[in-house]
């Protein structure tokens, strides 16, 4: 069933009038890009499809483009069902409106690798519905039954007579036709734009190599001025006093804006704002955690373990504790993943114009609806008065689900009485993030007589990652469903399994990061499985096969990865490490191939085999997995934030290290399509990388590293020896 809101034409037209933003038109100047928004429409057939008399089709992309290729693949799914001529399709970022909300969560955001898997059925229907309306309009014009007509590449044809009518000629009449409740979606065999190993050149790429693509930081609107911001020197600290006189007369300064835990300076130009911010004298109150550091945090994790309070059971099958207490052989280990910053390449920024008539936002955001709600609250205006234009995102990795930086820009605009572009420095970006918290998993496994695990019991301590992005409250003492991912509901056949979770309360803002709970928990689970295989004297690949014996699709993924890697047949001096995941609705198996040279590791190859049910765009899917592997290598090898004096030590890429070009191994990527439903891809690629790497390090050196990043445990790559 199609939700009513998605089919109300009035909604649609109101939505379009609110101004979708065309960012695909490569060579336009920034100001023109936004001016063009109103002209993009044509006749709307539903919330997703509008057709102009010249046959140009405008397709709405509900999601944000941050490199996952969504604006191309999402639109191509609609265009395929619509039987549109792809060369005549334009893609725009949709307004923030009910029609574009996640069909289950009723919430518009881009994240959790959901953009395709959760919208696929809906947008296929919307494309198909529009196609049937166009056919109905053509049937009237040609005076033939609709069943005699065929739609193909932007026109409706009557095969009997050879007569053809273009979509542009039909759109106005089609818009008056009833919306079919159950349009016929095309069988997969008739897909022409997506699936079947096809790939479309991404729409956003030419502008991105010309330098003309408009990211949030590139927005220019008339009368705009700039803001720079500095947050409290301890996390959660607040302003005690701002000495405005300290920047009186400083070139370009327009306003000093105290913002609770930060202070901003608005100036005519960005560098003037930065210079004034350095001069500005501010006294701060310490945050609630005072001058806490890594040792305090470690003690908090340890205390949580020692205590019986605060635990909730996330999953229990059979009786793991009883099996463990009577087991002959128990393997016990603790796995740690560090605090991480998102550090997308484009620092946080937003441009906002607050006027008495309403609020206009231009922002690189993953949380479009969140932005509207947060601004409505902060500015005390009705959400309908807030128009959110979405730009390209220079990465997001979850950070841009929040709207804190947009709210700051709005308050600056209000104070300065001008449109303001607020830009965070990289030091602010890494030093005042909402961090992916450290995960500490204490695992105990009982080995049965066959060497396979008869029971596994995880006790996980981690702060909530879901709370700040959840539309409903996440209470301490309960289970954060994202934090326990991969420890629960994994497809390994283990009769007795239990996961207990303690939601640690910390004086640090925490939230999701790409890979959500799967990242840290896969490192724990897949390191453990490797340890169990070795303890049982079995090959880690064959061990996983035994645990997945009843799951043909998962087995196929593991087998394909082993075959591509040449498992067991590595050339002299090289070793393999494997990890497997069931995450975001997809299966993934990765095999790392490395050797040890002068005490440092050289990563030669990373094989990734993924089953996301259906691959809709082959080149783009490959790109997502490849990029994900490299992103995962940063997390596995180098990246972490640490704390001293109530604040993060690492402030830029010298401290928060990431992988660069030389560390990138050969990447071998393949896909299977056995899972029944479409799965995600955007967050999948990095998931198994840390465990695959750590398992390979064990194979090479006999040393089991149970804590990330590897470099902090003394495991360096031949390029990374300078790590400090």
């Amino acid at each position, binding site marked *: 069933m199609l939700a009513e809101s998605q089919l109300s034409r009035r909604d649609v037209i109101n939505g379009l009038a609110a101004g979708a933003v065309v960012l695909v038109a490569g060579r336009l100047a920034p100001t023109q890009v936004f001016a063009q928004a109103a002209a993009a429409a044509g006749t709307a057939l539903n919330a997703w499809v509008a057709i102009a008399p010249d046959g140009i089709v405008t397709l709405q992309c509900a999601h944000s483009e941050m490199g996952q290729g969504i604006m191309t693949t999402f639109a191509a799914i609609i265009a395929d069902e619509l039987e549109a001529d792809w060369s005549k399709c334009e893609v725009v970022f949709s307004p923030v409106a009910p029609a574009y909300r996640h069909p289950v969560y009723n919430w518009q955001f881009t994240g959790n690798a959901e953009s395709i898997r959760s919208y696929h059925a809906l947008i296929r229907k919307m494309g198909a519905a529009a196609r049937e309306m166009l056919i109905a309009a053509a049937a009237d014009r040609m005076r033939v039954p609709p069943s005699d007509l065929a739609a193909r590449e932007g026109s409706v044809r009557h095969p009997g007579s050879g007569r053809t009518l273009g979509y542009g000629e039909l759109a106005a009449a089609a818009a008056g036709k009833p919306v079919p409740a159950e349009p016929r979606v095309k069988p997969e065999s008739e897909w022409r734009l997506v699936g079947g190993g096809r790939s479309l*050149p991404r729409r956003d790429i030419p502008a*991105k190599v010309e330098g003309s693509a408009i*990211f949030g930081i590139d927005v220019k609107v008339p009368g705009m001025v700039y803001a720079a911001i500095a947050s409290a020197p301890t996390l959660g600290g607040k302003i005690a006093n701002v000495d405005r006189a300290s920047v009186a007369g400083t070139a370009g300064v327009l306003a000093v804006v105290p913002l609770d835990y930060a202070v901003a300076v608005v100036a005519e130009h960005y560098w003037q704002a930065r210079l004034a911010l350095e001069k500005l004298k501010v006294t701060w109150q310490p945050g609630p955690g005072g001058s806490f550091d890594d040792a305090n945090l470690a003690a908090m994790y340890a205390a949580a373990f020692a205590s019986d309070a605060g635990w909730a059971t996330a999953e229990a099958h059979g009786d793991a504790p009883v099996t463990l207490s009577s087991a002959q052989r128990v393997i016990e280990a603790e796995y740690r993943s560090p605090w991480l910053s998102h550090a997308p*390449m484009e620092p946080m920024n937003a441009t906002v114009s607050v006027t008495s008539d309403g609020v206009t936002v231009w922002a690189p955001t993953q949380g479009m609806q969140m932005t509207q709600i947060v601004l409505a609250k902060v500015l005390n205006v009705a959400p309908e008065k807030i128009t959110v234009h979405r730009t390209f995102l220079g990465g997001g990795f979850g950070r841009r689900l929040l709207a804190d930086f947009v709210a700051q820009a709005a308050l600056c605009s209000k104070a300065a009485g001008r449109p303001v572009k607020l830009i965070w420095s990289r030091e602010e970006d890494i030093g005042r993030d909402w961090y992916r918290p450290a995960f500490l998993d204490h695992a105990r496994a009982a080995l049965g007589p066959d060497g396979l695990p008869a029971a596994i019991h995880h006790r996980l301590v981690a702060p909530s990652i879901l709370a700040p992005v959840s539309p409903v409250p996440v209470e301490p003492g309960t289970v954060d469903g994202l934090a326990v991912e991969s420890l629960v509901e994994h497809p390994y056949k283990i009769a007795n399994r239990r996961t207990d979770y303690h939601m640690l309360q910390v004086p640090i803002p925490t939230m999701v990061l790409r890979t959500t709970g799967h990242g840290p928990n896969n490192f724990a689970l897949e390191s453990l499985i490797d340890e169990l295989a070795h303890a049982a004297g079995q090959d880690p690949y064959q061990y996983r096969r035994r645990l997945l014996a009843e799951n043909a699709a998962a087995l196929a993924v593991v087998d394909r990865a082993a075959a591509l890697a040449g498992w067991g047949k590595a050339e002299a001096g090289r070793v393999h490490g494997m990890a497997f995941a069931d995450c975001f609705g997809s299966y993934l198996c990765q095999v790392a191939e490395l050797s040890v040279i002068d005490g440092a590791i050289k990563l030669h190859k990373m094989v990734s085999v993924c089953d996301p049910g259906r691959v809709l765009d082959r080149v783009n899917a490959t790109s997502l997995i490849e990029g994900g592997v490299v992103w995962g*290598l940063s997390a596995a090898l180098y990246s972490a934030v640490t704390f001293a004096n109530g604040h993060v030590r690492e402030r830029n890429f*010298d401290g928060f290290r990431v992988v660069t070009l030389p560390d990138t191994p050969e990447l071998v990527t393949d896909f299977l399509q056995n899972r029944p439903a479409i799965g995600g891809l955007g967050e999948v690629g990095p998931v198994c990388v840390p465990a695959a790497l750590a398992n390979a390090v064990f194979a090479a050196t006999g040393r089991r590293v149970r804590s990330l990043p590897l470099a902090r445990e003394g495991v360096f790559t031949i390029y990374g020896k300078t790590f400090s």
Partner: protein
Amino acid sequence: MAKFTFTLNGAPATVDIDPSTPLLWVLRDHLGLTGTKFGCGAAQCGACTVHVDGEAVRSCVYTIDSVEGAAVTTIEGLSKDGLHRLQKAWIEHQVPQCGYCQPGFIMAAAALIAQQPKPSDADIEASITNICRCGTYARIKQAIRSAVMP
């Protein structure tokens, strides 16, 4: 404030500005060329790479007073007639993901191949030290290799 005159993408440019202003912000805020990106502000990521007299420099730490009289080329001026061969290779290999780092990589690679028309893999690894958080390095390497193929 002081006046600085230089050549920008082949045309004369003059700005009247605080001499400590980094070239990056002069390009972006004063001259309207936003293809050059801000990533770290500390010469660590290369997102801000432009050419000054043919050399790749990180414009976030390159103050305007050192640009006086020089010839500056940005991503917008890399090619006079359509796309540079690196840009074509970038499209062919579908290199960018979010794309934010890519102008910097292209400018760094363009400076490399202008000086070393046939760079080896080791040359590429040694001279392309930019950061891409989306992890597009493998395709960047392929695109550079294909652009310098005869």
